């Protein structure tokens, strides 16, 4: 696999991190929307986008992979998709401590 940070490495140096799927807004969505996001999957036989990590450098990135042929089409840095910082604070505000 070609790591966007470290170049081509053996597949055993990487950890699979699940498919990439857009997260619903935890403050707005219903329980069933959240359950759908947490558990459900298209589990497609074909091209998918997924999270991977290079173990030694703890670097997370995205990969496009074919789940039938096991071909890795492309790997890229998450900043291609995540252009803004995401906040996980319950009310969406920045965690601030006095």
């Amino acid at each position: 696999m070609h790591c966007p940070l470290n170049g081509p490495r053996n597949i055993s140096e990487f950890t699979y991190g699940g498919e990439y799927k857009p997260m619903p807004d935890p403050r707005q969505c219903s329980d069933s929307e959240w359950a759908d996001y947490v558990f459900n999957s298209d589990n497609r036989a074909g091209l998918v986008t997924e999270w991977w990590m290079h173990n030694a450098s703890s670097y997370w990135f995205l990969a496009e992979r074919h789940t039938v042929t096991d071909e890795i089409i492309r790997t890229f840095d998450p900043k291609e998709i995540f252009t803004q910082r995401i906040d996980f604070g319950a009310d969406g505000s920045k965690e601030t401590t006095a």
Partner: protein
Amino acid sequence: MPFSLLKYGLSSEYPAEVDLPAPKELKPSYDVVIIGGGGHALATAYYLSKYHGVTNIAVLEKAYLGGGNTARNTAVIRSNYLTSEGVRFYAESVKLFRDLSNEFDFNIMYSERGQLTLAHTDATVRAFRQRAEVNKHFGGRTEMIDRQQIRELVPTLNLDPGHLPVLAGLWHIDGATARHDAVAWGYAKQAAKRGVEIHQLTEVQDFVVENNHVTAIRTNRGTVRCGCAVQAVAGSSSLLLNKLGIRAPIHTYPLQAMVTQPFKPFLDPLVSSSALHCYVQQTSRGEIVIGGGSDPYPLYNTRSTLDLKESLLAHAIEMFPFMANAKLMRQWAGITDMTPDYSPIMGLSPLDNYYLDAGWGTWGFKATPICGKTMAELIASGGKVPELIAPFSLARFSTFQQVNEMGATAASH
């Protein structure tokens, strides 16, 4: 006798027994269409035809009978799970397995040799205590044993592999194995005898859905109408669910296994180690079957990898060092439909007349009889969910009521 044998041999028409009638055209319509031709599908057809008088059934298999995971599994049969929902269900299956050869009048080579799981940490010992008690509570035979007892049971076992000395064992006396192909054939033959049509090389490609009902099923050999339908397609579960727009928490992972050259009998019980992610058993032919954990990432492909085979073998050799000189005879993989809680997805679907037998992952062979029996009850009653499978509904994931069997499943299937 030799004379009659000679006559039989020279006769141009052998009075051969026909197990499965030759394939014919699909009928335009069936009461029940069962998708998949593995053990689960065939058992469902059998129990429907034998106990519920439903015989207008088609079993549609895209390849050949029992060629999916039914033919690829390592045939561990046991009921020593963790949750009461799980143990109750699997214990019932073990009971059915015991009588199967009689029921079929066909030898499935059921062999009750006991299954031993090794604990290498205190945490595992605690979990084993709980599993032993739950199992006993539901009529299973399971007890904790110490190192000395393990040594007597399996003298060839290395009790101090590397940094992981064996502390104790979970000894499941009901643990067993059987010939997996025979289970599929037995169900197929008995179902066919009662009029069930088994169509191989018949792939389900799409559905016709009207008013929340599956009214017809499209295959490569034409479209058939159906009163109701059930899917039991293991690793391909999501592919059908996606066509119906049903969301489910299934991920398809390969699971690999292998078998060595034959040895003289040396190993009676099935032995597995939770920490080494490896299990080993000797077949009645003397071969050693070696299995372990799933592949590290999802894939719809039955290819094997050197990485996984190497690490699995390293662990097997730690358990049984003499195997270092063994030669491998065969190796293979199957694609398994994994769920987040390592329990199946059985019962109703969001569609009125479409039933699910999915999410069987790496542990569904042992459940073949009870799946067939409960799915048949569900179908025959028009959707009344048997109590035994109620905890395994697809709906449990939207109410966060998972049945967690991960710890009791991962190492030994």
